[in-house]
């Protein structure tokens, strides 16, 4: 399984770069998409019950995903491609005039995008509403929400955090992409997170801190926590730009232009992992 997921994660990364290149001079959020490629691979390739032509999960069964860090959409779109929701032709329309794939996800049920996001700090509240609905209707689906570490600067994240525990929502799992950077610098410099693990724990969440770029560890963590009767937070320690050495930990690539030359260089590096 994990070999297959590793292949998917490389494919996700290559499509992230393809879309970033197609966006051309309008730029793309590259670093924070590459950092969650492995989490995305495990979610769409294994963990989540998705509904598509490939399988028959009904509306009552299929899991929901909310990309609260909406600027990580390149990884999301690439994940939807792996699962057949989007075609290659769709991907290269990214950020083009009139495209359905903008720089932050726009609700589009046909394309498998359930929620619009982009303004930080809102996705978890939405997820709690969805999870409450599942509980009330005795539906079995789970809700996954991906947040950024910088996003945790937003106060609304903590309103939502407090309420998930209060409402005993064990059907909510969040993954915090802890890549240590936000738009204009490191978390430490802009707004330090302190002990992020203990913060979530103190809000009543079961919390795991893992290597978020290690597919085996991501997989085993999801399995380990599946039966825990609390809302669950996975703090995924990741590398911003993971997989492309000239992008890794270089915050210039938070939002930048990927030229053909740099694209070729990046793809060559990813191909060497195959």
């Amino acid at each position, binding site marked *: 399984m994990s070999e297959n997921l590793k292949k998917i994660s490389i494919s996700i990364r290559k499509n992230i770069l393809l879309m970033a290149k197609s966006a051309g001079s309008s730029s793309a959020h590259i670093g924070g998409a590459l950092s969650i490629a492995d989490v995305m691979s495990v979610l769409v390739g294994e963990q989540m019950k998705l509904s598509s032509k490939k399988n028959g999960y009904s509306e009552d069964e299929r899991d929901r995903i909310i990309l609260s860090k909406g600027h990580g959409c390149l990884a999301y779109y690439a994940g939807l491609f792996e699962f057949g929701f989007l075609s290659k032709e769709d991907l290269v329309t990214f950020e083009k005039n009139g495209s359905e794939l903008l720089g932050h996800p*726009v*609700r589009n049920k046909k394309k498998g995008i*359930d*929620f*619009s*996001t*982009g*303004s930080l*700090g*809102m996705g*978890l*509240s*939405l*997820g*709690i*509403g*969805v*999870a*409450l*609905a*599942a509980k*009330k*209707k005795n539906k079995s689906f789970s809700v996954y929400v991906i947040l950024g570490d910088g996003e945790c600067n937003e*106060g*609304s994240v903590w*309103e*939502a955090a*407090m*309420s998930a525990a*209060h409402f005993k929502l064990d059907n909510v799992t969040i993954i915090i992409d802890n890549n240590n950077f936000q738009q204009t610098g490191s978390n430490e410099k802009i707004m330090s997170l302190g002990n992020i693990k203990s913060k979530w724990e103190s809000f009543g969440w079961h919390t795991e801190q893992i290597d978020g770029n290690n597919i085996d560890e991501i997989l085993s963590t999801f399995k380990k926590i599946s039966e825990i009767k609390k809302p669950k937070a996975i703090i995924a320690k990741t590398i911003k730009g993971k997989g492309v050495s000239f992008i890794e930990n270089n915050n210039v690539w938070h939002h930048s232009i990927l030229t053909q030359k740099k694209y070729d260089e990046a793809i060559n590096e990813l191909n060497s992992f195959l």
Partner: protein
Amino acid sequence: MNINEKNIKLWSSIGSRATFGLAVLELGKSIDNLMVLTSDVSTSAGLDRFKKAYPEKYLDVGIAEQNLIGIAAGLASENYNVITTTFAPFQVMRCCEQIKVNLGYMKNKVCMVGIASGLVLGNLGYTHCCIEDVGVLRSIPNLKIISPADTLETVKALEAVVKNKDSSVYIRLTGSSNNPAVYDHDYKFEIGKAIELVSGEHIVIFCCGTMVHHSLEVSKILRKNNINAKVVNMHTIKPIDKEAIKNAIEAKLIVSIEEHNVIGGLGSAVAEELSKLGYKNKHLTLGIQDEYSEGGDYKYLLDRHGLSIEKIINKILTTMEKL
């Protein structure tokens, strides 16, 4: 809801908030997927009985309004019929972006009820008044805005919204207890369709919320001065009834009256249409003239902002003298 003379009197005496509580209690009986969400204001919103009668349909999210709107949107996206309620400024101003993204942009359909809007909480200061909600919300697409004229209209608006939810709606509740009744019997209420309450050929008054009753009183006194004022209840501010405004185009004076800032509210909505129609005469916009005044009780503040019946009449008469 059982609309009869006795109930209309009762609702009028208890005011819009408590009437809202009775109305949702009734809706709870028939609507299976109803969810009523508050942020620690169950008593203020008249929801204590609802909370006991339908605990599974009630959710208190604590003093966290941003979370209130987000959770409401999540429930709505799973096909719940959601009503959110808290004090108007906290619901609208604090959550402006949650409303934009979750309800306007993403089109999750939620009915927001803003209690104690306008000036009624003037003793508590302008943190608790709300003179900006219509202006702020009017600029968000996919959202309707209703400002009921009295407690019966509050009931009718709520029923209309909950039973036919084709978009998110904000219902703005104004006035105190002993909220004067505009309507003493049942009538046809349609979202987006203004109601002419009094006919008259000299001037036209467009009004909403508590100012509808004031306008009726004003029209009676003007009539004694041989001025026949048409009074139009513009209960829906968005979408504005363009036809009703078009019908006023020949008036030598149009007056808009609202318990709201004159920027962004009913007066602005009327002026936008009048401008498109090329209206050549005067439009007098009565309301709060873009200021946070000193505080005071409701009656004091209405008068302070020129919204007492006497001040409205004086303003109309002096304006007419100059025409």
